[in-house]
């Protein structure tokens, strides 16, 4: 190594040399990331020691000493000292469909599968036959609502029978899909030059952001009845969906507004100077850049919204957490809080982690080598 760098070359003749061995490969990575200084080296070793103690215990609890099949908690305790997953296995169906009639469960199942068919062309621009499929994406919400709720030839199912994972996904997906366009419109309204539009948007955003979601859900479940004409039937789930969408859209609006402000003024001017109309310049120039900048914030809001769906338990809707908590009240399984909460946490983690990975993929795909 030393004799390479000591060699001299005529000016302009210096060749490209390989980097020193210790800066690349596995060794280089370990040196840079695990042992870059004495302090970091000690921390790395300490972390390894903690893992060595904790990891076997966790694995024992979750897998090796766990009981997967049992009739009740007593049997679990007799069979093994680890987790009692039998409660999850017994309650699995209920945790997904809650009180949805057994013989009709193919309908939410079909709606769930079609959800991915509808999301595919929206999320991935290389999706086969994307243009035609986007048409399906547009009719999907109505199709899904018809499948799940019934009517028009299908046997109707009361929405108060909805619950579990199904309810979480219904509220989460509706809130996410509804609040993005609404939030973008609100953000554009808030930065608009038209005073009336601006005041309405600012008022809406500030009101919604200033009130806790729980309060809005209470308004949805109780107070709306006072404002609506007596005798109007207005489904509770529908009210919740609207409230959650409005709530999330106010947050999305502020995230998108941040993105709009980060787009250089010159971009607006270039678009104006070429004679693009307001909507053309927003759609073609400003929003693509603003939304790209806002992706982390938007996904952050979506993940927050998705987890906040558990709050509906307060007005009597049983989402996945609510349904699983009812298992705890069952004398057979009394006291298995850890297993039940781990199961619910894993469910939420998988959903949220998927969203987070997608946002990273999107950021990478939209990166066009320009500095911001």
């Amino acid at each position, binding site marked *: 190594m030393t004799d390479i760098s000591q060699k001299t070359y005529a000016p302009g003749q210096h060749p490209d040399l390989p980097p020193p061995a210790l800066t690349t490969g596995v060794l280089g990575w370990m040196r840079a990331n695990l042992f870059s200084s004495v302090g970091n080296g000690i921390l790395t070793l300490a972390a390894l020691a903690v893992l060595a103690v904790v990891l076997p215990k966790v694995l024992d609890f979750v897998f090796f000493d766990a009981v997967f099949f049992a009739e009740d908690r007593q049997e679990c305790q007799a069979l093994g000292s680890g987790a009692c997953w039998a409660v999850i296995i017994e309650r699995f169906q209920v945790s997904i469909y809650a009180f949805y009639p057994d013989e009709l469960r193919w309908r939410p199942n079909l709606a769930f599968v079609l959800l991915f068919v509808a999301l595919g062309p929206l999320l991935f621009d290389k999706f086969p036959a994307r243009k035609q499929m986007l048409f399906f994406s547009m009719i999907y919400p109505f199709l899904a609502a018809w499948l799940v709720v019934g009517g028009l030839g299908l046997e109707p199912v009361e929405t108060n029978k909805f619950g579990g994972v199904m309810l979480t996904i219904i509220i989460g997906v509706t809130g996410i899909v509804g609040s993005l366009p609404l939030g973008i419109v609100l953000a554009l309204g808030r930065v608009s030059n038209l005073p009336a539009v601006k005041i309405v948007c600012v008022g809406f955003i500030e009101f919604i952001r200033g009130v806790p979601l729980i309060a809005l859900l209470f308004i949805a479940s109780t107070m709306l009845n006072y404002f609506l004409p007596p005798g109007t039937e207005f489904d509770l789930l529908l009210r919740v969906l609207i409230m959650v969408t409005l709530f999330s859209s106010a947050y999305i609006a502020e995230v998108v507004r941040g993105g709009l402000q980060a787009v250089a003024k010159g971009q607006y*001017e270039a678009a104006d*100077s*070429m004679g*693009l109309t307001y909507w053309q310049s927003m759609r073609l120039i400003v929003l693509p*850049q603003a939304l790209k900048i806002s992706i982390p914030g938007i996904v952050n809001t979506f993940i927050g919204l998705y987890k906040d769906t558990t709050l509906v338990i307060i007005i009597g809707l049983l989402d996945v957490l609510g349904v699983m908590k009812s298992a705890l009240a069952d004398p057979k399984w009394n006291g298995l809080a850890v297993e039940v909460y781990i199961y619910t946490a894993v469910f939420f983690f998988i959903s949220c982690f998927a969203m987070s990975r997608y946002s990273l993929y999107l950021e990478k795909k939209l990166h*066009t*080598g320009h500095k911001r």
Partner: protein
Amino acid sequence: MSEQAIEKKDSAIGGDTAIQITEMHKWYGEFHVLKNINLSVQRGERIVICGPSGSGKSTMIRCINRLEEHQQGSIMVDGIELTNDLKNIDAIRREVGMVFQHFNLFPHLTVLENCTLAPIWVRKVPKKEAEATAMEYLTRVKIPDQALKYPGQLSGGQQQRVAIARSLCMKPQIMLFDEPTSALDPEMIKEVLDTMISLADTGMTMLCVTHEMGFARTVADRVIFMDGGEIIEENEPESFFTNPQSDRTKLFLSQILGH
């Protein structure tokens, strides 16, 4: 000085006037940025506008395509009066191309898409045709091979040439240049100036805010000197540089040419 300017304008009206600015004023809040601007530009004329920073040069040419609003006086572009009517503003913007100091290319679109966007959406040109035109202009600014790259992958000089090609794709009658070379490295200034010179040779009406006095000398039909929001002096380049009339112009020229 301004009396003289108005007389000059009067004699010019009736010819083939591209831009006619009459007694135009502009304020930023309380601040009077443009004071009684009178300027008439003939079709095919090349005008260089210079002056110290803050003198209102950029603001003036930005008024011509309504990136800035004037509060008093009138601006006629290509026979269309610039009013608050959005129809007129859009009509004028279709005919006036603008090149900015910081290029303002759209970073999320390729070079080719940058060039075809406005023709497709504003002029309703079919995509194939717009792409053919774009390649023609990209060839003219000598970077057809970069068409599928993103602006962020190009050098400053290349980006500015793309910006010029992008404006030309709209087939404008008038081109405005707002300090097109002042954000560039010295080596890249020349390639952009060469592009502008070859554009001038095609007979394009050009208004150019620049401190490139060499460019002004070789290309301009008229040089305008502004200070404090007023047009102080305007003349043919030869007389402007060798025989400036006002003391302010003399001082400016001595500073800008002195080193």
